[in-house]
């Protein structure tokens, strides 16, 4: 601005011509702002519509019953909507998934960033990320047609639909996510930190587990929490392999119905729109949204609190 207010010197060798540039720059800023507003507005819209229907639902079914009933029978003449039934199934499949995915994902991340040769890493990392792109319907059939029959060899009482296979396969499907994000976090730990550890007479294993992993902790935990919310929201695998039987409890061998599976069932079925059973999917959707939101907030808080800033 100051240069513009000076009288232009025609003999100056430096003659900037940014007249048009300036208008283009303004336009670009507006355009970006517009897109940012669209994406935020969409999210707000989704949450609002969810909220309206949810409020409608709770006009009929008291919140207290929703939270404490021990049955999920939306189609009975005297329906009960105990969310705990669906929550327990979601918890069960997600818990099994995390049990599978955390050790698998973390160990591959550690191997990739600390032990694999640079050449191997160059190949494995993209391969891992491709694995993350396999459609979940493929994983769903994998669970139903391969994992369940295989597990039945060892566990004869295992149902054709069950939480165990679904959980294991969700775990496999989110392993690349944990591996890839954790690997980024581990790889980003400065070399200086490793050198400092070696210089104290520590071995590679002691350095990796004692110095590098703690330094990458916030990134690792963030990746795990992200994977948890992925597992909670996973739909195709549970709809295909875990069954559609609302049942309260934590038995992994029997068919169960998760929150997502219920939403799929009602959306695809012939439940009349406007009925209380139909409205219930919004309440379930809201619960799902709140659970994942809680995880994201925890993750955000954790990363903020424990992120180490090394220059």
């Amino acid at each position, binding site marked *: 601005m100051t240069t513009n207010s000076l009288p232009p010197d025609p003999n100056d060798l430096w003659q900037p011509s940014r007249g048009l540039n300036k208008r283009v720059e303004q336009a670009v800023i507006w355009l970006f702002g517009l897109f940012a507003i669209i994406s935020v507005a969409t999210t707000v819209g989704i949450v609002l519509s969810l909220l309206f229907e949810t409020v409608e639902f709770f006009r009929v079914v008291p919140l207290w019953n929703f939270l404490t009933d021990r049955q999920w029978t939306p189609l009975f003449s005297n329906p009960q909507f105990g969310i705990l039934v669906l929550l327990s199934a979601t918890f069960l499949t997600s818990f099994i998934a995390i049990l599978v995915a955390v050790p698998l994902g973390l160990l591959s991340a550690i191997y990739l960033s600390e032990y694999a040769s640079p050449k191997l890493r160059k190949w494995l990392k993209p391969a891992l990320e491709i694995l993350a792109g396999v459609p979940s319907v493929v994983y769903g059939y994998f669970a139903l047609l391969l994992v369940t029959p295989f597990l039945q060899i060892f566990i004869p009482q295992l149902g054709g639909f069950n939480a165990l296979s679904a959980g294991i396969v969700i775990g496999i499907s989110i392993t690349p996510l944990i591996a890839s994000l954790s690997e980024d976090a581990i790889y980003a730990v400065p070399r200086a930190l490793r*050198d400092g550890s*070696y*210089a104290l*007479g520590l071995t590679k294993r002691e350095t990796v587990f004692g110095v590098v992993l703690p330094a990458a902790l916030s990134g690792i935990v963030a990746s795990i929490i992200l994977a948890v919310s992925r597992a909670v929201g996973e739909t195709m695998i549970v709809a295909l392999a875990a069954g559609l039987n609302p049942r309260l409890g934590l038995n992994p061998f029997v068919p169960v119905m998760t929150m997502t599976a219920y939403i799929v069932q009602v959306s695809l079925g012939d439940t009349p729109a406007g009925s209380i059973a139909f409205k219930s999917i919004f309440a379930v959707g809201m619960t799902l949204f709140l659970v994942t939101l809680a995880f994201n907030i925890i993750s955000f808080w954790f990363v903020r609190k424990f992120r*180490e800033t*090394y220059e």
Partner: protein
Amino acid sequence: MTTNSVSQVATKACLRAKNVSVYYGPFLAVRDVSLDIFRNEITALIGPSGCGKSTLLRCFNRTNDLILGARVEGKVTFQGSDLYDEGVDPVYVRRRIGMVFQKPNPFTKSIYENIAFAARINGYKGSIDELVETSLQRAALWDEVKDKLKESGLSLSGGQQQRLCIARAIAIEPEVILMDEPCSALDPISTLQIEELMRELESRYTIVIVTHNMQQASRISDKTAFFNAESTETGNKVGYLVEYGDTEQIFSEPREQATQDYVSGRFG
């Protein structure tokens, strides 16, 4: 060219480099260095950047082993035994010959744990609390941190972080401490504190320090080695030892013209 005025008293040598050359892949970085480091002395390595001071320093505790493609030729002995002998475990070498780096690199742990961690892993059987206290005292940091031992090491200032790294290095009681430009990232006051600290540590440890700062070398060191680099036919620069002797002699009556030019600030 290599003048070794101190080799007559070599019996006291703690670390000896004999005809050491270091390669990074095909690239020769330092050529044919022979140098004795003496016990309970401070030896300064000076010279223009890129002449291989850090490279040579890393030979003394086998941290070059950690660099892909680095190769050390010649012989490095520590108290008479070959550091690069087949049966020698580099982890054990580094346990006895510690290192402090150019940029402070405290672990992402509490101040207390920064020191306790390696001691515990190395199987220290005494009181860890006491060890932490004495190490911090020796590193002249205790008074500043004694009320916040639980806080992250990264919460300290740069100079404090570097003293924490020194405390961490001396906590495991090495015999030698290698320092690679330990003050180059610090302000003048922190620098003076660390120099003072080194003089105190001299009675218990053998110190080798790489420094860019010639005043620093002349202030604190007993012996000084001056390195320079020369271009080869292929255009690469190769570092070599120009002159080694008592610090006083190097700074007041160097034998080589290049040394004279360097210490008087005419190049580098």
